[in-house]
């Protein structure tokens, strides 16, 4: 009886772990939209230079490798790459 109980408990635990790993895998596979990816990357670029932003609300690609970004913090930025490959983040007044 005790053996049976232990076996059932083990099966239950294994089932729980399997379901949990399946859930984690499913969540991991759900890929962001292109817009979300761009917003996250622009936020990282702004953060890397220590400029406040909190969250990117809107962005617009003004030309190749140049963006205007509006942040939740109320700040707006111009992000661009110069011909020497230097990334520049300017606070837009």
């Amino acid at each position, binding site marked *: 009886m005790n053996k049976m109980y232990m076996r059932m408990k083990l099966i239950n635990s294994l089932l729980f772990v399997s379901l949990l790993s399946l859930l984690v895998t499913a969540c991991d596979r759900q890929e962001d939209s*292109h817009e979300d990816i761009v917003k996250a990357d622009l936020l990282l670029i702004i953060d890397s230079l220590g400029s406040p932003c909190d969250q990117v609300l809107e962005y617009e690609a003004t030309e190749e*490798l140049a963006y205007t970004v509006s942040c939740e913090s109320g700040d707006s930025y111009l992000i661009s790459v110069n011909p020497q*490959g230097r990334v520049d983040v300017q606070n837009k007044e």
Partner: protein
Amino acid sequence: MKLSQETISTARKTDRPSGVQVCCTLLPVLVMSIVLSLPAIAHEPSRPRGGCPPVEEEIVDLQILGDMLADTRAIGLFTKLSLKKDIEKVLSRLSKFHDGKSKFTLEQLEEQYDLLLMKIAIHLQDNDLTLHTHLCNAWLVIWEDLRDFDRFHEHHG
């Protein structure tokens, strides 16, 4: 009913397209081909290549760039791991694209690639000028390699 020699020769003349007719047919084709080739010319990337300081040996692979990033002291460990993961994500999305299973267009993937290189460049531009110069020169070269089906599979297959 007999046809005169003159009638036959006139008929032959009207059958053969004149110079004006040939021009009228070919001109629209010529104009169309020029118009169709214009977007390709206009889309010539304005990436930071022309202004990059020269390097002796160019990086031609995103994986090689990733390996060089692992060796630099300009970036902290956690940022290196994060960038490595980002490189793998972009490569995985491109792999799906080349296999016809991507939800992203090539233009979107190009933008994601550019943003990845911007994220890397921002860490190098003040701390590792040598690697930043390599990155600057490789920006366009690597993309050309990634967007091409055969070259992508040759390097990342």
